[in-house]
């Protein structure tokens, strides 16, 4: 029998874990790395690189290195999120045949689930290599705010990678599960402060005996450790310009080295007050080579990042409000994500919550650990924890003037069934189009379109007279069923919503075949 694994499929880094004797265990790669950078690249000689090696050439091969695919997975090409991402990403994002966002890499157009599948494939390879066993199934984590399309696209990615998905679970829930295994059996309210490479999330959970309930969640999808790296890099570039009168920005080899060095220095500054950056032969002029040496202090870096950390604290306030709690109500604060090792982050969290964060868990690995525990529990005959999740985004329909009318509000525990009454907008209207959206914006088009259908055969009457009941039924897996009913005639239309931008079964099969060939290629490398 194969093993089960948990995968934290992150924006900048991913992590894979399993369980040994029911306890979580993070699986290192053959080179000892416990994190897999979520990078995919195709080189000039058409070799595929995944993980560390793809990341280490990301600046010298920017057009063919895909990273942060998680930002656009399951998104429509014309969505606001894709427009924002396009401005920030160095690679080309194009429209797919289903209106989905795709990327151009190595001269080929790839779907985002295909890119994520490559990262999952690497995680699977690491796990199979270490465990010397096949993988029976995986729990994969997603941010709590992921909508249905994004969750479905993540499931598609796993299918392309040849991984059986046991469950998709929310990242804060996974963290709570890993923390929960180490705590006593008391009731607690916990805050999970997750500052990763590219995103920030805060979630408030209630942990009872075997029941984990998410009370609220909030975040910023464009705030993470990489923003801090970029600020340090810009500061170094300014310093270099001042000293040598050279703008290094156009020198890709120099920029790649600088990025790597800054990342290392930042990690060093978590435990030391200063770090040295030494880059011999960084660049050259007609007068010869230029070596760059500098010392970066923790104080300087903290000055560069303090406003970003203050923003996260503001989001913490919003999450507490969303849960109807005060900060004193929180029993434990769990730090997740590598960036939370920064002393300034810890200081700000302590100042805000008035207590020291829990130090018993590894912030880089806790999400994967929780996913591994959950995967193990699913296959275990023993009673497992009950996970009560919430809708991180509101669900509703488009109404008059393109407005978004909420039916299930944000932070509602699932499963949930809710109904709301609507009516017609003109006389003798015999049909209505029900367009289902998910998001927190006031206008429907600014949210994610989940699906559309038409309810026909409405009683002919003056506008405003017919009673149309729209019911939303979301199960604990996050699958949404929408019903529209003419309450006067009893005419009913029910649809289970599937992502509009989803890949077709045939496409998934083709991509799966391609991925199997890649798997063979990677094994030979």
């Amino acid at each position, binding site marked *: 029998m194969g093993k089960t694994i948990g995968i934290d499929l992150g924006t900048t880094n991913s992590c894979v874990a399993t369980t040994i004797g029911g306890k979580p265990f993070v699986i290192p790669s053959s*080179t*000892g790395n416990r994190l897999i950078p979520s990078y995919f690249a195709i*080189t*000039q*000689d058409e*070799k595929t*690189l995944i993980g560390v*090696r*793809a990341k*280490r*050439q990301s600046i*010298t*091969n920017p057009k063919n290195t895909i990273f942060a695919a998680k930002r656009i997975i399951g998104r429509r090409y014309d969505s606001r999120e894709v427009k924002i991402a396009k401005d920030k990403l160095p690679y080309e994002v194009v429209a797919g045949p289903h209106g989905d966002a795709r990327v151009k890499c190595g001269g080929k157009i790839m779907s985002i689930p295909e890119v994520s599948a490559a990262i999952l494939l690497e995680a699977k390879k690491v796990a199979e290599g270490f465990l010397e066993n096949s993988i029976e199934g995986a729990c994969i984590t997603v941010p709590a705010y992921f909508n249905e399309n994004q969750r479905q696209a993540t499931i598609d990615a796993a299918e392309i990678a040849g991984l059986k998905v046991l469950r998709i679970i929310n990242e804060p829930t996974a963290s709570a599960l890993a923390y929960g295994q180490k705590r006593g059996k008391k009731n607690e309210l916990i805050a999970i402060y997750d500052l990763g490479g590219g995103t920030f999330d805060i979630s408030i959970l209630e942990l009872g005996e075997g029941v984990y309930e998410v009370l609220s969640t909030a975040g910023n999808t464009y705030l993470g450790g990489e923003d801090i790296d970029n600020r340090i890099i810009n500061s170094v570039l300014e310093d270099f310009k001042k000293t040598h009168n050279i703008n290094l920005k156009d*020198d*890709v*080899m*120099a920029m*790649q*080295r600088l990025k*790597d060095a800054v990342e290392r220095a930042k990690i060093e500054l978590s435990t030391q007050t200063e770090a040295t950056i*030494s*880059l*011999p*032969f*960084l*660049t*050259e002029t007609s007068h010869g*080579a230029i*070596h760059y040496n500098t010392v970066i202090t923790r104080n300087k870096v903290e000055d560069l990042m303090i406003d970003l950390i203050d923003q996260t604290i503001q989001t913490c306030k919003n999450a507490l409000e969303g849960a109807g709690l005060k900060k004193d109500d929180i029993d434990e604060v769990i730090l997740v994500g590598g960036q939370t090792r920064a002393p300034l982050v810890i200081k700000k969290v302590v100042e805000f919550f008035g207590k020291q964060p829990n130090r018993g868990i590894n912030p880089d690995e806790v999400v994967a650990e929780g996913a591994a525990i959950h995967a193990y529990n699913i296959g275990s005959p023993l009673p497992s924890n009950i996970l009560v999740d919430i809708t991180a985004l509101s669900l509703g329909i488009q109404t008059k003037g393109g407005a978004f009318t909420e039916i299930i509000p944000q932070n509602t525990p699932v499963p949930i069934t809710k109904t709301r009454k609507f009516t017609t907008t003109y006389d003798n209207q015999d049909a209505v189009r029900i367009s289902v959206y998910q998001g927190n914006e006031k206008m429907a088009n600014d949210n994610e379109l989940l699906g559309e259908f038409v309810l026909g055969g409405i009683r002919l009457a003056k506008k405003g007279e017919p009673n149309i009941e729209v019911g939303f039924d979301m199960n604990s897996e996050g699958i949404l069923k929408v019903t529209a009913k003419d309450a006067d005639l009893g005419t009913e239309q029910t649809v289970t919503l599937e992502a509009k931008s989803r890949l077709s079964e045939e496409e998934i099969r083709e991509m799966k075949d391609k991925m199997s060939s890649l798997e063979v290629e990677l094994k030979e*490398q």
Partner: protein
Amino acid sequence: MSPEDIEKLLEDGLTLYGYGKTDDAIILWRKVLEIDPDNQKAIDYIQSAGYTGEQKAAEVHRVTTKDAEFININYIRDLLKSRRFELAYEFLEHLVEKDYSSNRQIMAYISLVKAQLIKIYNEELYNFKKVPKLNIKEQDIVKYNLDKSDGYIISMIDGYSSMEEIMQTISTVDRFELMKRFYKLTKLGITGF
């Protein structure tokens, strides 16, 4: 035989030549001439490899050789005889810079010398399969006469990636150039295994 097959025979010949199997290489190039008697690459390779028995090649040589080039060609032949391939390659590159790039024979020599150098690099650097390490202290690197591409290669040494894997991740420098630089860094004692 398709043009791709002919190209493959030419390439295979270069590989054999690179491994010192000149006679076998010439057999392949002659096979090309049997199918395509005017194939200029095959003619140039046979001629540059020092094979004088090929009538066609000798004719081409007489027609295209100018005095200055003749002197250069003789100098290259001397370098090759004394197995000073790196110097020969540098000299050939110098000739290309001096606008000899249209000279087919010089271009053929470049292919031949490259093949010979690749053979040497592969032999001495374990086919690039070993994981390189830095043999000197980081602060001492600046004492050497290197450039930014060398600095970049050194920065990619991480203790677990082989030279081949490092080369795959460097798209800004040509593969042969990378091999040459790894060889130089090893010869200088900056990197080892």
